């Protein structure tokens, strides 16, 4: 058991190491000269002399691997450098923005769970009846819908036509509803489909046939026997989709002008604020990889079948 966790931790470190390397490599390959950009952002007209001076101060004239090493050593202590645009430590800017993103993604995730479980279960119970077809049609449409277009349509209907909800920004609870729904709907489509498949797979297992032959009520079979077993693959799926959730948040935040890290990252791209982009990418990676590790360890503890596979 503990061997498994250690193995996963080593993997986690390796993946994070790979991501820092790729991120740094990208910055290295980027066309702009950070020294020049930094000077320009402070309003100084950069002379060649000055640029050369700042370059050597920042250590930009050192070889690639040396620079990566020094940078990584700083990143490990939580120092991602200074944002060109805000002129503040990247970590501060990120931390000020992160709560808004967590609110958005968290409420979207709750919505997904609340809606997709009933839908998936109904779809499985009424398999190949009209209700199942309606749910599957919805789920198919949701999977093909570009989230930014969905968000615009919601804005148009609820914000402009009906004037029920605010269209942009963050002004209290109301303004969370539209972005959270925009983020949730494509995932609801994906989950209800997946939950249906998993439930149907479980239904054909021997223990279900056994319970049925003993005369156990159908509702009890579903809630007490099938659902707990079906939960494991679904929780794993949830871990995986946090990636889509965080990435999707960038699009939804920038559409609804939601003051989270995603919108910040997109803005940072246009101001060429490389340290901020680096910080964003690495933080998203940490959140994603850690969540997935927790999910894996949890399923590992919950499911004796997986445990046997690894330890024997």
């Amino acid at each position, binding site marked *: 058991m503990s061997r498994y966790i250690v193995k996963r931790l080593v993997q986690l470190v390796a993946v994070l190491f790979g991501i820092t390397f790729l991120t740094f490599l990208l910055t290295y390959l980027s066309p702009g000269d950070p020294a020049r950009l930094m000077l320009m952002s402070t309003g100084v007209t950069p002379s060649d002399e000055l640029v050369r001076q700042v370059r050597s101060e920042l250590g930009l004239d050192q070889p690639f691997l040396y620079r990566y090493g020094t940078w990584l050593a700083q990143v490990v202590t939580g120092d991602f450098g200074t944002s060109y645009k805000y002129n503040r430590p990247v970590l501060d800017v990120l931390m000020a923005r992160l709560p808004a993103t967590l609110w958005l993604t968290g409420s979207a995730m709750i919505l997904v769970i609340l809606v997709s479980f009933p839908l998936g279960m109904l779809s499985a119970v009424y398999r190949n009846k009209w209700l199942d077809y309606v749910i599957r049609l919805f789920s198919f449409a949701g999977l093909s819908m570009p989230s930014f277009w969905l968000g615009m349509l919601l804005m148009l209907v609820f914000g*402009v036509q009906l004037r029920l909800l605010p269209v942009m920004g963050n002004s209290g609870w109301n303004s969370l509803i539209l972005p959270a729904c925009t983020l949730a709907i494509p995932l609801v489509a994906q989950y209800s489909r997946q939950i249906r498949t998993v439930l149907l797979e479980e239904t054909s297992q021997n223990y279900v046939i056994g319970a049925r032959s003993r005369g156990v009520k159908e509702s009890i079979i579903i809630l007490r026997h099938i659902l707990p077993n079906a939960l494991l693959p679904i929780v794993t799926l949830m871990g995986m989709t946090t990636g889509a959730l965080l990435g999707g948040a960038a699009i939804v935040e920038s559409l609804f002008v939601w003051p989270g890290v995603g919108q910040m990252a997109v803005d940072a791209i246009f101001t060429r604020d490389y340290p901020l982009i680096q910080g964003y990418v690495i933080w998203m990676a940490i959140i994603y990889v850690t969540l997935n590790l927790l999910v894996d360890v949890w399923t590992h503890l919950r499911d004796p079948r997986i445990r046997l596979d690894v330890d024997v």
Partner: protein
Amino acid sequence: MRAFRLVILQNRWFTFLLSLTVFWIVLAMVAPLLAPHDPLATNFARVLQPSSAEYPLGTDQLGRCVLSRLLYGARTSLLLTFMMIGIVFVLGVAIGVIAGFARGLTDTVLMRLSDTLMAFPGLIFAIAVVGMLGPGLFNTVLALSVVWWAKYARMARSLVISLQQKEYVAAAAFSGARKIQIIGRTILPNMISPLIVMAMMDVGGMMLSISGLSFLGLGAQPPNPEWGAMLNEGRRYLQTAPWLLIYPGLAIFSTVIIFNLLGDSLRDVLDPKKNTA
């Protein structure tokens, strides 16, 4: 290969979807003949007009014809999507085949690299690549290729490894076929159909990724017509000119639906066992 073609054409639903796709592609190719106006021509006397006889789908903030831009945009969107699927397919399969045959250190390095990429949210990495290298179509193509090849490499590698265990591969080796012949003649033809299904299922998602990046202003740059970029330009006119966001969105949505249906039905046709319905 002929049997393969027959099976596909016998499925009416699949044929229908395939002809819809072909129709879409033809529409995009003959855009210059169909478009009523030059997609880049501005007309400041006719800014933000709703649909009329002259401009069937209205005009945008610069007085450009929305219908013409949609038709020309189809070229960019469709061409780019197919090109991208082609790139990640060839790149991924090549790397997977190399890893599967070489094994050892080459295999380990390539697979660890693909693990790292797959253990990471694709869109965020794509944002990172475009963010660092600068917005633009070329960098979008680069970003998405870097993210997507890993999946194909994994699949191709596992197919190569499992096919090498087959008796007919051993038979080919016994009868003195060279390694390159075994790969090209025996193994590749047998692994191609699951990979094609995978690629077909990805077309819709690829289109959504490309238009998503363009919507963020990171992909196609104005004034070039591209559906996601059109939505990005139109978002400021949500209240005054809703047609600027309804039509391009509808174009993306309907195209992605067709591709997703096509992918699903191709999977069902080629692999009836996996039919979950």
